[in-house]
């Protein structure tokens, strides 16, 4: 959250574009990441993120500070926008249909981190989870958001968010261990 966020929001609500610009600069990376992880396509993520901020700018007077950060409101818009996107697209992006832009990002991240869990596998496991579980995992562990802020973004109670997180982590562990087993089995077969 920005230090002078409430003032920036008030000024932006009065129509001061530069104040909204500051909010945009601060929250763009997080919202873009969230959308990118949901759609797995660079260009679609860019289009959707643009629409999220355009919608926020056009409907800024609807935002009222009730103890939740501005980011929760933006995530809420992004969440709804992604749902609309899949509703019109009719199907979720298949990991095999992931675009080149995404693959480049995955390879870049693989070089950054030193872990036995490959980025692509974690992403594939996330894609197999429900929308709610994906949202909670991304907001909680990728963005370090509190349960309270996640609950505000998802229009749910904190208890419900904790429950979703618990199930999501269980799913993720199971899926990743299955994938690990599959990989070791495949390796075993090739060596035989």
């Amino acid at each position, binding site marked *: 959250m920005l230090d002078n966020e409430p003032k920036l929001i008030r000024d932006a609500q009065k*129509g001061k*574009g*530069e104040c*909204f*610009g500051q909010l*945009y*600069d601060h929250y*763009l*990376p997080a919202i*873009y*990441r969230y959308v*990118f*992880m949901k759609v797995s396509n660079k260009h679609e993520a*860019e289009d959707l*993120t*643009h629409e999220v*901020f*355009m919608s926020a*700018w*056009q*409907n*800024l*007077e*609807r935002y009222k500070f009730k103890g939740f950060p501005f980011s929760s409101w933006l995530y809420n818009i992004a969440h709804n926008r992604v749902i609309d996107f899949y509703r019109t697209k009719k199907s979720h992006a298949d990991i095999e249909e992931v675009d080149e832009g995404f693959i480049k*990002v995955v390879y*870049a*991240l693989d070089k*950054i*981190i030193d*872990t*036995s*869990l*490959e*980025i692509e596998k*974690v992403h594939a496991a996330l894609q197999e989870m429900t929308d709610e579980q994906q949202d909670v*995992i*991304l907001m909680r*562990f*990728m*963005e370090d958001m509190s349960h309270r802020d996640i609950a505000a973004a998802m229009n749910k109670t904190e208890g419900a968010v904790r429950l979703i997180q618990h199930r999501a982590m269980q799913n*993720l*562990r199971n899926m*990743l*261990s299955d994938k690990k087993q599959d990989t070791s089995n495949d390796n075993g077969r090739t060596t035989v």
Partner: protein
Amino acid sequence: MEEQLFKTLKAFRNIKPDQSYAEKSRRMILSVPRTAHPIANIFQRLADTVKYSVALGMAMVMVFLMIGGFSYFKVTNLSPLVLTSFDESNGLQQEAQGLDFRIQLGQAKYFDEATQQVADSEREINALLDKIAL
């Protein structure tokens, strides 16, 4: 594994939008003027309608008053054309004029009767003088 999973999830934080995209998108968003909320629009339109209706209504009332519309409905007290009849000096003048006229008629009758009496008296005096002379 748990630790590696969190580490991998944290690694996704390195995903960032292109700088050129961010700048272009920012420019495009801020170049669009903000449109008011639909509900706010409704209230604005309603306020405009009321404002213009009141102005039009007031103008019509003024015209109505100017052409003496109230007298048409027998609301004489408010008609500017009828208000002149409440001018007391005008009424008294008319009354006084009527009084003068009646006074003049009375005087004419008096003078007419007096002349007749004088003529009669002169005739009687002349007759008496003639008798004395004889």
